[in-house]
């Protein structure tokens, strides 16, 4: 049994879905759909863990085995741990989730919420997708993205640097450059 559990850990490939602090039912519904679950299982993923936030759509739990194991929760203080143990992250388009995932070097599919009033969020996801740091999808095209993605073609993201800004602020105010 102990051996089996060890095997489980090795073959365990988790897809972590996160909607952030609000709700994004369209995304939860999309990942819970038979087509997306089937695609993920075909790609070799074994577990689907969904952080559903304040959403009202509740996914169906599943034990897995011959199909994808599905589990969910609303909020957690240890999102970082979930991101860390994931093999693939599917997230909303909030910049917090995007950069936290990219910093951990995890493959990421960002799903844009088209119901938001001020939908600027797609700008960042599309730009980073153009630079091949992640994949960008809509809830209704998620299954296509999962089927077509090639994780080896993703380019690792190098973190930014705030020193140029501080240099300009210092210079403006008359502080000497160090």
């Amino acid at each position, binding site marked *: 049994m102990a051996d089996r559990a060890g095997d489980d850990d090795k073959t365990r490939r988790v897809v972590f879905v996160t909607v952030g602090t*609000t709700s994004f039912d369209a995304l939860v519904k999309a990942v819970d759909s038979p087509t997306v679950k089937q695609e993920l299982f075909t790609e070799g993923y074994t577990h689907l863990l969904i952080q559903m936030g304040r959403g009202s759509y509740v996914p169906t739990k599943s034990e897995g085995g011959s199909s994808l194991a599905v589990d969910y929760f609303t909020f957690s203080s240890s999102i970082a741990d979930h991101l860390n143990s994931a093999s693939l992250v599917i997230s909303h388009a909030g910049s*917090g989730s995007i950069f936290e995932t990219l910093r951990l070097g995890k493959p990421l599919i960002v799903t844009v919420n088209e119901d938001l009033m001020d939908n*600027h969020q797609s700008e960042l996801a599309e730009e980073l997708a153009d630079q091949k740091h992640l994949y960008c999808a809509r809830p209704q095209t998620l299954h296509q993205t999962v089927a077509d993605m090639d994780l080896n073609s993703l380019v690792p993201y190098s973190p930014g640097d*705030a020193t140029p800004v*501080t240099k300009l602020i210092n210079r403006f*105010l*008359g502080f000497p450059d160090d």
Partner: protein
Amino acid sequence: MMEKGHGCSFSGIVSTSTFSCTIVVVTLILVRILYVILWGPRPFSRRATKPLSTLIVLGSGGHTAEMLNLLVVLQKDRFTPRFYIAAATDNMSLQKAQLLENNLTAKNGTRVPNTAQFMQIYRSREVGQSYVTSIWTTLIAMIHALWLMIKIRPQVILCNGPGTCIPICAIAFLFKVLGIRWSSIFYVESIARVRRLSLSGLLLYKFRMADQLFVQWPQLQRKYPRATYVGRLM
């Protein structure tokens, strides 16, 4: 009849003089506003020697993360004391700033209350709130911001959106026009804005309230030439 006529001409003189007074005052205010707009964005010619009191407006979530990245590399001995303001509905941002300040204290041995203060402000607009109701909430936020600004009167303001920073910047601009306090306003547009400025960024850009407006994408700088491209903060 005599008295009436006399009264008439007297009020005539009064109204002419109030009229010309108004003209003079309005002209003076306009000249002052122009001065603030045109001279504000010029770098200081004198060398700064003393530390400057700094107000840091924390947005929320991603905005706060970007601001903290900036603060980590900012020379804290030059920007002191520091006043942190966050929306009353946002508990996380001040906690994160407090953590940063505590780490600094542990390193330098100074006490946090001497170098940093933390305050909350009413938010002018919540995510998803309609633009009509946000007129009233903005008004309340303005009054609260005025009270805080009278207390703080910062020399430097660092902000990066969203709406929380607009009342603060508007009052800072007013203080500059009235000669109450000359503060330098720096606005860093969020990394989430790739093609267009946010509403806050656009207001500060159009009304020239920010002395320097930084953007994190080159295509955004090309669209708004008075902005400065600084690369990614995240």
